[in-house]
């Protein structure tokens, strides 16, 4: 993969107290929804971040540790490095309605997918979950796309009370049955997997594992024999169900197995 491309940050949006969106002065017209880039802060670190929109390249990042904290301190006009796009993304099934289920910052890459679905005139429902109303992101953007939007919060402060997957149940039972596309924390993905299996729905789930190279050399992101950076990050329900590590184990930076 070529060296990182250095680009200025054009705009920064504060989504909520932990999440910001960065619009970069570059475009990745070839990128597919579900693919990711390696975002480099020279002198700090480089991390995988999903593409929330490709042109201009838009990334939505939660503040969780040293890298993302440093990124949240970056100002408009300052420069970052990007490599990519990497990985295998979502494949929209054109003949079936789309049910998108997102949690946390996982909602952002689903925006890119929803944009494609709408353009292909696929009936699309987006179900997003958050702890409380203040944590919701991308609500206006999805509304502007004109998709059906269902919101679930743990405390009921917005939308219905409960998890995104509970809220999705009703839509999963519709006829014609939808195809499920999901991105979010792993416990949510496990619940989505069960939902798909129970209702016999095809599903594509975006999975995270610790990444170093991002392009299939270091082996760090392994999930059983799969490489999340190359074979994923989007996997089918059948693939994930056949693995021993999904929902159970991830690997830390040394490669040691840890509980999810």
């Amino acid at each position, binding site marked *: *993969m*070529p*060296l*990182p491309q*250095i680009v200025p940050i054009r705009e920064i949006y504060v989504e909520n107290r932990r999440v910001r969106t960065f619009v970069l002065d570059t475009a990745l017209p070839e990128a597919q929804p579900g693919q990711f880039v*390696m975002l*480099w802060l*020279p*002198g*700090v*670190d*480089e*991390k995988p971040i999903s593409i929330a929109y490709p042109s201009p390249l838009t990334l939505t990042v939660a503040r969780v540790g040293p890298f993302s904290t440093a990124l949240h301190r970056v100002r408009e006009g300052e*420069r970052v*490095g990007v*490599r990519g796009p990497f990985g295998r993304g979502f494949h929209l099934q054109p003949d079936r309605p789309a049910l998108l289920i997102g949690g946390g910052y996982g909602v952002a890459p689903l925006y890119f997918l929803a944009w494609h679905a709408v353009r292909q005139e696929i009936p699309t429902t987006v179900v997003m979950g958050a702890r409380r109303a203040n944590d919701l992101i991308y609500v206006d953007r999805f509304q502007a796309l004109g998709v059906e939007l269902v919101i679930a919060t743990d405390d009921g402060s917005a939308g219905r009370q409960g998890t995104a997957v509970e809220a999705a149940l009703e839509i999963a039972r519709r006829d014609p049955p939808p195809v499920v596309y999901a991105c979010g924390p792993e416990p949510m993905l496990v619940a989505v997997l069960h939902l798909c299996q129970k209702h016999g729905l095809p599903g594509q789930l975006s999975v995270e594992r610790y990444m*170093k*190279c991002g*392009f*299939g*050399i*270091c*082996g*760090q992101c*392994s*999930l*059983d*024999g*799969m*490489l999340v950076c190359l074979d994923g990050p989007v996997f089918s329900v059948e693939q994930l169900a056949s693995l021993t*590590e999904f929902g159970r184990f991830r*690997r830390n*930076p*040394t*490669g*040691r*197995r840890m509980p999810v």
Partner: protein
Amino acid sequence: MAVDLSVSLCGIRLPNPTVLASGILGLTHGVLVRVACSGAGAVTTKSVSLAPRDGYPNPVIVEWGGGLINAVGLSNPGVEVMVDEIRAAKEQLAPLGVPVIASIFADTIYDFGTIARYVSEARPDLIEVNISCPNIDDQYLRMFAADPYVSAQVTRRVKANTDIPVLVKLSPNVTDILRIAEAVVEAGADGITAVNSLGPGLILDIETARPVLSHGTGGVSGPALRPIAVRCVYDICRTVDVPVIATGGITTARDAVEMILVGATAVGIGSAVYYRGLEVFREVCQGIQEYMERHGYRRVEDFRGRALEMMGHR
């Protein structure tokens, strides 16, 4: 006429001469098994140390136009975890007949013995001793493989602590690889892996005037390394009489055949996994087979070292 691609390396049978090089994908048994199922004749683990290591921050590996440059920082989960990974890989690879090579490294000559003993509990088919990582931080500490005496001491320590055949992995960053090869063989090495990555090298991001790798410098591998690796293998094979896994810039069957012609028993493949994907193992084997058919060779030994004869060394 049937062509037999299998080779014997220190008494261990490989179904074909291609070997997954250390540090490429081989962190977990799941991926080691996948690589073997993709056609590798043997698989090498990421180099393992006594204690776990996080490695350096990203970027740790980039492609720069002529190859890769890496400074991963020898991240690994430590030998305690790796023993389980090797055991699991061995168990799953036994039916395929694909051997597992455990790569080990340590900071001191003494610890090389300790880790050799520890890793032997998992009964890998071979142990590869990495004395040649070019990313050394301590400016007073030289790479073990730079010194024939130290290389021999490490080899002796490892040999004294295991009954498993031992390969010593040498560095191209020396003026006298011949003498180092002689020293490790005299110290009991059963075979040699040559070579580790070259350098260190340095690649900058010119927009920010910073190195691209977080560590700054890194080891150079891939196509840029190949002619140097071929010369190193040539030097080693005309000097010592142990099997060699030739590694460095091999991406095609042509490159693999070249290494066998200068005397290699097997060929290590690392960076080519980036350039060609995991299909590289099958493609290289297929190409070697076609070469053998074209030349009427039945076994890999039939052409091993032919270039040494041509160049007057045998």
